């Protein structure tokens, strides 16, 4: 049955600096942009913490394409596959700095920033390109709702969840979505590359 658990992956198009503080980011956003477009994920004001423990909102991702997966680190089967798929997408992307890869955890209880950082180390995720996000149950719920990701926590604290791959552009607008694990990611990568080209 765990084979039917499906992890969620979202490709976001955006800019993000892991070292950027919320304050710096705020100034950056004010000078560069006005309100997000009406279909942008940046309309969500849910609060997150990065693997470094920095407080952020999704708007931190503005400016460049990126890939986001909703999953959790203790996921027994499908989540490792999703991270691996993302790693491969990252590896095949020609311009290494043109996109960012984001792992947003369902697991508000266990996936603390510390644990996410440890996970990133174990999975050899390049933190210049990846960000791992810890959010409250409410933040998780809102992001999942916006992405059309379905999930449920069971009595053991594991999550059944749907697998959705979403491409959003640099303004946070969803440009492509793909459901299911082990799907052909070629179309998604083509769209990602074309978005990335536009932001060189």
């Amino acid at each position: 049955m765990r084979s039917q658990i499906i992890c969620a992956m979202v490709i976001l198009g955006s800019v993000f600096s892991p070292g950027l503080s919320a304050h710096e980011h705020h100034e950056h956003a004010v000078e560069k942009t006005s309100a997000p477009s009406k279909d942008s994920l940046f309309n969500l004001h849910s609060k997150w913490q990065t693997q470094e423990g920095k407080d952020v909102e999704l708007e931190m991702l503005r400016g460049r394409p990126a890939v986001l997966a909703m999953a959790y680190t203790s996921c027994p089967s499908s989540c490792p596959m999703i991270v691996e798929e993302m790693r491969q997408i990252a590896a095949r992307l020609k311009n290494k700095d043109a996109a960012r890869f984001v792992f947003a955890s369902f697991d508000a209880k266990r996936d603390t920033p510390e644990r996410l950082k440890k996970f990133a180390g174990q999975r050899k995720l390049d933190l210049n390109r990846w960000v791992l996000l810890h959010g409250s149950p409410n933040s998780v719920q809102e992001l999942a709702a916006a992405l059309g990701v379905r999930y449920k926590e069971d009595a053991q604290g594991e999550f059944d969840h749907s697998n959705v791959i979403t491409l959003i552009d640099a303004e946070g607008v969803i440009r492509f979505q793909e459901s299911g694990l082990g799907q052909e990611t070629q179309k998604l990568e083509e769209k990602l590359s074309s978005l990335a080209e536009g932001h060189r």
Partner: protein
Amino acid sequence: MIAIAVFLILSMTPRSAVAESMVLLPGGTYRSFLLTPASKKGEKRVFRAEPTSVKSFYLDRQVVTNGDFLNFLKTHSQWRRSNIPSLFADEHYLSSWSADLDFGGSKNKNKAVTGVSWFAAKAYCESLDKTLPTTDQWEYALYDRGRGLSRVKEKILAWYGRPNGEVALDAGASAPNGFGVRDLVGVVWEWTLDFNSFLAGEELRGESGKDGGLFCGGASLGKSSADDYAAFMRYSFRASLKAKYTTHNLGFRCAREKK
């Protein structure tokens, strides 16, 4: 005696402020109509109606009305029809309203507000320090400790069988159930906080219609839910929703945790 009376009145005051529009439901269990994943890899999904525990909570006595929602929009302009981000609602958001702050005449004031997305419903409840009820809470309220269950089921099926578009009832017009909650049946479908905790339609239907999918009928259903097509319709409906969807027959009410 007077002192006791005064004490009682004073100690009751905060609670009765809540109780005016909300009712406190005692904790208990109900039979959940759920897809229960089997634990081992490769096993088929089965449907089982397991008793689900629900803690005591407050629930709105009736669905939220156009009048209620207008009051919210007056102070929360970002949720008005002309302002709401398309991320949060599709193009039919409040489409029955004449304008941003006009629900189309006093006859609509006490009608359930419909055409609201999950995001908007959630924001409304949060503005009142409430939340949307969870699916378990909502279903528990409907189950009503099994009081008049067969009559309720008949009423539900009769309602589900009526064509859409008939004249909507006023909120609160129907008789309260045993908990004192109205409108659960016969007015509108209602959002729940975790409407998206069930896998989508294809999961409910199963693979090629031949294994544990619900559409395959009795073989895949536990005995206690085999006849509960009404519940199945609700769960299927929720599974078909997305958070930005709005329809003319989907409204909501709010809940509040008992502290």
